[in-house]
């Protein structure tokens, strides 16, 4: 029963959805503060390569995640400096970040320069729970045969939900994203809030990238996220900027990303390209659905998303 194709697909949906979940939660934090960061793909790839480098050097998975988070956060800092301090166009700056950091950019430069290609990871994330739980019918493989990355991502979802709903800084960041002028008048430092949330968002994207190089792939290949960062951005829109919905959406898109590999392993002979294009086509379809439903009310989008805040020009 646990080998039935549906269970296998759902289990790998969780596996493949986890990087999307980390990255989309990070992007959600940045966007809630009013900063649109289209550089998620680049931040993920730099996190993936630096996390992999750290595990090869130190054999410590914890340290690898820290390094991946710092690398992703450092990339986000460039974006924050350009769009918050220099008031640059957020769309172009995010694209620049993806070009700079992404496949055939810094991540590829670092991976080639540090000779990380074509070697297996020294340590990878394994399932942690006891075998009795993992062998439970249906929910065993889906929920309990997962690594710490998956359980960690659930913790992050809960933290983000509580942070945005139940804490003072969470309320403040929503104010900054909705109306920076009002927040400023309340004495909230708009610049600091935007910097912090953009950088934390980048750190989460970095961890999301490390999910690929330390768990899914698990090795370093140039451009190994293959568009996951962009799907994560779409996911935030698709989830109406709500962390709980991001969780569901991540596994939905995770299933489509996992489908080509699971079906091939089960001997299904459809052209692989057709299956591989599923996550991209589904992203477009999901965006169409959401935009036709929500275009009039802009459901959930922070009002000041993408706009620079300049105190003397409001």
């Amino acid at each position, binding site marked *: 029963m646990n080998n039935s194709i549906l269970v296998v697909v759902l289990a790998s949906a969780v596996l493949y959805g986890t990087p999307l979940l980390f990255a989309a939660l990070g992007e959600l934090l940045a966007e809630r503060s009013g900063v649109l960061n289209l550089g998620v793909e680049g931040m993920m790839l730099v996190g993936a390569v630096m996390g992999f480098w750290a595990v090869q050097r130190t054999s410590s998975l914890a340290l690898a995640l820290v390094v991946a988070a710092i690398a992703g956060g450092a990339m986000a800092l*460039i974006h924050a400096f350009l769009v918050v301090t220099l*008031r640059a166009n957020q769309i172009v700056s995010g694209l620049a970040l993806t070009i*700079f950091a992404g496949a*055939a950019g810094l991540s*590829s430069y670092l991976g080639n320069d540090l000779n990380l290609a074509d070697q297996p990871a020294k340590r990878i994330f394994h399932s942690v729970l006891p075998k009795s739980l993992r062998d439970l019918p249906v929910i065993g493989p889906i929920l309990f045969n997962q690594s710490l990355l998956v359980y960690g991502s659930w913790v992050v979802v809960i933290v983000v939900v509580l942070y945005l709903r139940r804490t003072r800084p969470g309320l403040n960041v929503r104010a900054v994203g909705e109306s920076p002028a009002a927040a400023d008048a309340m004495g909230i430092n708009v610049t600091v809030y935007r910097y912090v949330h953009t950088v934390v968002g980048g750190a989460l994207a970095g961890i999301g990238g490390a999910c690929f190089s330390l768990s899914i792939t698990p090795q370093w290949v140039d451009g190994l996220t293959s568009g996951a960062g962009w799907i994560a951005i779409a996911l935030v829109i698709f989830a109406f900027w709500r962390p709980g919905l991001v969780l569901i959406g991540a596994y939905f898109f995770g299933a489509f990303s996992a489908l080509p590999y699971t079906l091939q392993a089960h001997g299904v002979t459809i052209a692989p390209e057709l299956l591989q294009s599923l996550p*991209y086509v589904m992203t*477009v379809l999901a965006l169409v659905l959401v*935009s*036709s439903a929500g*275009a009039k009310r802009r459901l959930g989008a922070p009002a000041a998303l993408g706009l620079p805040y300049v105190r003397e020009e409001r």
Partner: protein
Amino acid sequence: MIRIERRLEQPGWLNVAVPVGSLVLAFGLSALVLVATGHDPLQTFRRLIHAAFGGQAQLTETVVSATPLAFTGLCAAVAFRMQLFNIGGEGQLYMGAIAAAAAALLLHSLPMAIVIAAMVLAGAAGGGLYALVPGFLRAFLKTNEIITSLMLNYAAALILNYLIFDSQSYWRDTTTAEAKVFPQGKMLPDSAAWPSWTLHGLGLPLGFLLAIGLAATLWFLFSRTRFGFEVKVIGDSPRAATYAGMRTRRKILAVMALSGAVAGVGGASQDGDFRHLLDPRGLQQAGYGYAGIVIAALARYNPFAVVLIAFLLGGVQNAGFTLQGADFPSGLVGVMQGLILFSALGCELLVRYRIRLASRARRPVPEAAT
């Protein structure tokens, strides 16, 4: 004390100073990356410049690299004019290449001039129709065109791979035993080989001349016609455009189709000028679409500047291919392109604002706070 003030008018010299300054700044930042990873920047840049612009052979190769970049740069510039972010130049170029290759294979027995014209038209149609997908979604459903056009890049790359590697398609060579083991595209007929000219030893392929002609046409369209004026108004202020009775939806469709068609002709030029078959690996190797965005931003959407900057970045890309190796890691070209775009954005600050060094003493804070 540094003050940042909004400029009331933009002086003309900034149009030259910003791109030049961004390039200088980007080279400086790239040098930092090289030093940080233990490379000698001066040595690397010297080799890069020699490999790109060092002689007639190198310059000819640079023009080869610059040709697709000029098309994708124009593609991005056309859409950015109206604040439409068409990131799909890459996929539109692939679709243009597919359509143009089909036209060449179908019409193989016709005279060369007709085949070439058909390839250009087919390329434009392929790219334009593919760009109309995000255009249509944006115009009628307000779907974010950035993400949809980008997702379609991945889809187009998979279509390319499917046609050559995983099907018995019209484009695939299935005649020899070798081609069955190592899949590749059918060779295009001789009548589909685009001519090229040599000027003082510098090779000029038809595609590059076509890009220059296209730049001139686009310049005329955008600065001398009603269409261009309306595009500019819609880009700067959609609300004003609506009040003035301009048809925004039609313009979105027209501009996206035009933008995609330009990239599609770039794909046709890849078939006709350089590759002479549908070549998925080669087309996907260079990242023409992303480079086009950098070029359009640096050129500040001026079509002639796009061609000039495409030539410069084509040089960098050409050098990247030639030098790839241990002391020239392969991601360096992308790093430099990203840094150029970052620098252009930073320098853009100087266009919109001016930075003044004002002492506090001379500008006392008014006593009654507002």
